């Protein structure tokens, strides 16, 4: 999806979206997404509700945010804000997205600070952490469905995991060491099928996993 300065290329992208509209939409997504799954709400509001983006636009936006570092839900707010209203749009969208959660998490943090010696509070939070481990496992399995089935990808997964979790190597070094190797292994010339995949508009990004977005 090209930036707003070239808005003529993107079909189905809304015009006349005000900064307040942007703020409001992302504020709503940031306020109702209890327990995570923010990306799914963004999709629902942007595509289904406000119809500022077609589903295809949204998926290519998601694809960019998945490739870029940082939180996917925040990256989507940045990209949509930029494409619709430039830098002021980015500020409006990101502020809307993070304000409700920031206020609530800080209130919870203050309550926790004064009560974290209470065993009921400890047990409640431990139960939540246990649920989070279950959710993270499922999300990882679903996002990595493709990768877990490929021997090369699986090898990269195992090496990355071992470097961080077993050998406790700092993340920056892990990325600097493994990233270029992984990219080199997938360099264009070695894999014709993948290059053809690009022309087909990345069919694997339409997989069923988009039915259950949870980041």
């Amino acid at each position, binding site marked *: 999806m*090209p*930036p707003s300065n070239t808005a003529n290329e993107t079909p189905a992208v809304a015009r006349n979206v005000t900064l307040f509209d942007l703020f409001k939409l992302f504020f709503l997504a*940031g*306020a*109702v997404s*209890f*327990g995570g*799954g923010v990306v799914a709400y963004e999709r629902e509001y942007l595509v289904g509700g406000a119809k500022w983006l077609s589903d295809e636009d949204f998926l290519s936006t998601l694809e*960019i*945010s*998945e490739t870029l*570092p940082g*939180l996917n839900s*925040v*990256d989507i707010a940045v990209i949509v804000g*930029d*494409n619709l209203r430039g830098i002021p749009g*980015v500020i409006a969208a990101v502020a809307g997205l993070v304000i409700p959660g920031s206020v609530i*998490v*800080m209130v919870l*943090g203050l309550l*926790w*600070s004064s009560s974290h010696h209470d065993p*009921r509070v*400890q*047990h409640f939070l*431990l*139960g*939540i*952490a246990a*649920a*989070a*481990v279950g*959710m*993270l*496992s499922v999300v*990882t*399995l679903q996002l*990595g469905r493709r*990768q877990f089935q*490929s021997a*090369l*990808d*699986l090898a990269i*997964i195992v090496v*990355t*995991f071992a470097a*961080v979790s077993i050998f*406790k190597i700092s*993340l920056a070094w*892990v990325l600097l060491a*493994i*990233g270029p190797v*992984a*990219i080199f292994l*997938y360099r*264009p010339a070695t*894999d014709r099928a993948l*290059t053809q995949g*690009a022309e087909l508009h990345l069919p694997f990004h339409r997989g069923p996993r988009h039915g259950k977005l949870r980041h």
Partner: protein
Amino acid sequence: MRTQLLKLGAVFAMLGILAVGGGTAVLPEMQHATVHWFNLTDKQFRDIYSLGQVAPGPNMLMVLVIGYRLMGALGAAVVGIAFFIPDCALTLLANRLWVHFAGSPWRLTVQRGMAPVAIGLMCAGTYAIGRLTLVSAVTGRINPLSIAITIGVGAILLWRHVNPGILVLLSGTVYMLLSR
């Protein structure tokens, strides 16, 4: 104090930028940095992570509470700015440049190459929270109730899509009621 704040900001700015594949990817590094370089305990880290699951919006907003716990309101502000602003700036820049790489086969190469790295990092993040949650820090033995909740929640989500907020609150309540 000032040096500590700067260090806190630097750590979280790096974490925000290194979050390849989302926030889960940086959890091990964040745990290590906040526990070893600052005086957060593993248990506090786990508790604060859980708070992030209860609040709406990105779960990683819990970094604000880490900042608050370590260095008060100023710490929360520094962490919030450091974790989100550089990442947003980078994304903005990349969004403007992205169109230039639209037809390049290298774009797909980067995506294909980095996808398994991101999955590996997510496994590591899940493992980090899992170790803090499923194994008792005191006895070193596994915690059967935590394991049961993890498996239960995982099974429910594999079976059908349930609002994660409901599962989170339910799990907390169940653990609290069963461990009195």
